[in-house]
């Protein structure tokens, strides 16, 4: 399994490649090495999960991909461009944070609309009321358009945060442990909804989590990151077909794969 699991990253991305990192390194001014020699290639439309011990640099890596942090070594491209360039040229990129990061002074519908109001592009696409309503319907928030964020439950806030990230129709969605603060049942529901949204539009997804079962359930392959300085040490394909239902979590093969990755993670962390 291991030999098959660690397939070459270039092989899988001969077709349209959206994200590439080569020899990527990041050393903070304090001297702390967060990332070293990170190699990654993600094809357009792929759903990839990244797991790793806490503090290994998973979140930092996503921020480099989003152009929020400049790497200090190597290079990274999104659609052939530097991330901040890709970000500026169009709404190619969206980010879902660990917290819902809703603006408390905006109603649900106005939070949803926010990304469309930002940026300096002329003739920016304005979403019609119908489009906004459809986006709310897709995450089950139709009845809450006029509510304030604090009136929503944690799971609903996260759904809104997801809908907001997708409102610009991005090609790349970066997710930084978005469901980490939710209870298990809500997390599973949101996993299923997230897959539905992905199958709907087929954006490219990079999903950081420390929950191996969640990573296996969602993704087409799971990348395992080493402790700091982080780099990818394992690339495990997940063979299950989509659409994936809740019953997948009960299957033996699912449990075996989850256990296998968890064990490798433990080995490395020890």
């Amino acid at each position, binding site marked *: 399994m291991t030999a098959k699991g660690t397939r070459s990253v270039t092989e899988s991305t001969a077709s349209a490649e959206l994200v590439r990192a080569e020899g990527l390194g990041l050393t903070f001014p304090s001297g702390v090495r967060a990332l070293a020699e990170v190699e990654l290639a993600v094809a357009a439309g792929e759903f990839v999960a990244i797991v790793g011990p806490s503090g290994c640099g998973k979140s930092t890596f996503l*921020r480099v991909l*989003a152009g*929020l942090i400049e790497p200090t070594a190597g290079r990274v491209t999104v659609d052939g461009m530097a991330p901040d360039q890709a*970000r*500026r040229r169009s*709404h190619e*990129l*969206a*980010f879902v*944070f*660990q*917290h819902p*990061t809703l*603006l*408390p*002074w*905006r109603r649900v519908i106005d939070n949803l609309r*926010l*990304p469309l*109001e*930002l*940026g*300096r592009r002329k003739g920016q696409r304005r979403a019609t009321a119908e489009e906004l309503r459809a986006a709310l319907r897709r995450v089950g928030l139709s009845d809450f358009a006029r509510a*304030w*964020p*604090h*009136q929503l439950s944690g799971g609903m806030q996260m759904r809104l945060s997801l809908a907001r990230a997708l409102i*610009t129709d991005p090609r790349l969605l970066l997710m930084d442990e978005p469901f980490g603060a939710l209870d298990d049942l809500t997390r599973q529901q949101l996993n299923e909804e997230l897959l539905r949204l992905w199958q709907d539009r087929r954006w490219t997804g990079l999903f950081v989590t420390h929950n191996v079962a969640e990573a296996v359930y969602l993704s087409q392959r799971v990348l395992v990151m080493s402790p700091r300085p982080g780099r990818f040490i394992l690339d495990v394909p997940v063979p299950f077909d989509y659409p994936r239902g809740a019953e997948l979590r009960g299957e033996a093969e699912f449990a075996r794969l989850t256990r296998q990755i968890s064990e490798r993670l433990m080995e490395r962390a020890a």
Partner: protein
Amino acid sequence: MIQRALRFLADRLLPPVVVFVVFVLVWHELVVWLEVPPLLVPTPARVWGAALEHREALLRAMRLTGAAALCGLALAIVVGSLTAFVFSQSVVIQRGFYPYAIFLQTVPVVAIAPLIILWFGQGFQSVVIVAFILSLFPIITNGTTGLTAIDRGHRELFAIHNATRWQVLVKLRIPNAVPYLVTGARISSGLSVIGAIVGEFFAGFSDRNRGLGYLIQLSHGQLRTAYLFAAILASTLLGLAIFALVTWIGNAIVARWREA
């Protein structure tokens, strides 16, 4: 419905009323028992009598002092917000000017009030300026904090979507500052009344402008202690009223979206 209203009254109103009644009774008993001369401490009944006797002067004074305090407070909110905005735009400016903003807080207002009278003349405008100076600092500090203490996630969200500096200001920093400014205004509401009264100590000596500060000095000068007590009581009530007003307006602005 009526039961709930009664319950609310019993829960919220009863304790302070009981404290008040006990306080007045103890006050009365102590004055009588220790035979304190009315010149030093009048009984509650005498204070009440003085308040009734001078109610017109007291009410007029409350209106005048209240108007001066509110004008000073409003001016402080405008000037303080603008100052906070300038501070939030540049760390260098903030570092350069902040020590002098603290000056506003540390300079004894009693000491500079005569100067202000000298510059702006006897009367209402000088009282407003003293109230303004005393109210300004909490607005500046709270406003600056509100404009600069932005949640990291919100900052990154705006960066991801390529927000311009202007959009960050209008759609993130300013709305973020509103609750902070409301808190600042609430702190300053009490200070504005204090400022107005202190201002009147120095600027209120004319027949037309008889504010609470003037009445306090007048009654003190004439050793009419019961009247002095009544004036102090009126000052306290005025402070409470302005605090309640500012709190009410502030809640109306913020409460709908404040985290429950």
